[in-house]
């Protein structure tokens, strides 16, 4: 049996040209589900004011959150803070019921930046990229794969891709970069 493994070593993937791709260092990721009534208590525990509009983000230092659905958030933190977040949420669990699941190993993140970054995304993403505000994000689809897209600046994005799909999507983005370079 052939077992294909990939280490996903952080570092540049496409280092020059109009769009640069970088595989980012691992972070702690959590999937958080809770009802509206418990948002204030859990926000206080994590230290981030959870946004209630789908696609809106909130951050406190290195801990970031994005609202993915009416009752769903993705929390990103430094790997060292994994236990801090877990314990803080466990402490308020009795009074504010919620579901916090660590999903750090589920995804890898690629930074997409450069003068034509938003154009590159249109290679597989049907959503109107211009409709995503700077400082916002969304869960969307690129070439059939669900990804979370964070827009950090006009032409700087982070894309969280499930590991098993990551090689395919990174390949696709590299193809787009080559097409730009060949123009």
């Amino acid at each position, binding site marked *: 049996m052939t077992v294909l493994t990939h280490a996903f070593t952080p570092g540049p993937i496409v280092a020059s040209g109009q769009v640069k791709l970088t595989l980012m260092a691992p972070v702690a990721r959590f999937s958080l589900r809770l009802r509206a009534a418990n948002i204030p208590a859990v926000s206080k525990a994590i230290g981030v004011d959870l946004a209630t*509009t*789908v696609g809106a983000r909130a951050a406190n230092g290195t801990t970031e959150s994005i609202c993915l*659905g*009416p009752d*769903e958030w993705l929390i990103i933190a430094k790997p060292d803070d994994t236990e801090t977040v877990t314990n803080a949420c466990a402490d308020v669990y009795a009074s504010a019921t919620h579901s916090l699941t660590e999903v750090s190993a589920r995804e890898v993140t690629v930074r997409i930046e450069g003068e034509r970054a938003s154009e590159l995304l249109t290679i597989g993403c*049907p*959503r109107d990229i211009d409709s995503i505000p700077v400082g916002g994000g969304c*869960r969307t*689809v690129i070439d059939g794969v669900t990804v979370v897209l964070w827009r950090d600046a006009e032409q700087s994005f982070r894309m969280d891709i499930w590991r098993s799909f990551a090689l395919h999507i990174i390949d696709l983005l590299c193809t787009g970069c080559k097409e730009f370079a060949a123009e």
Partner: protein
Amino acid sequence: MLLIHCPYCNQTLPELEFTYAGEAHIARPADPSSVSDEEWRDFLFIRTNVKGPHYERWRHFHGCGRYFNAVRDTVSDRFLITYKTDDPRPELSKLLEKSK
């Protein structure tokens, strides 16, 4: 490509983010063991298959993940309305008037 309004995200987004999920407003019998075989068959398999405005479920699969309801004209593919799952079934006559 169809553009579909997700009532949970409150955004109009491309069809590729959504999946179709069959006819809407089909209630599971409260006590399945008391219904007859015919009633159970109708619940499981018999659908209206309308030509024209159709009440149906969609899921914002590559987005908020929520199921919601829609009224779509099966002839023109035009969406008359989309609404949250717990909202009441909108009256067709009002929708048709509004869409004129």
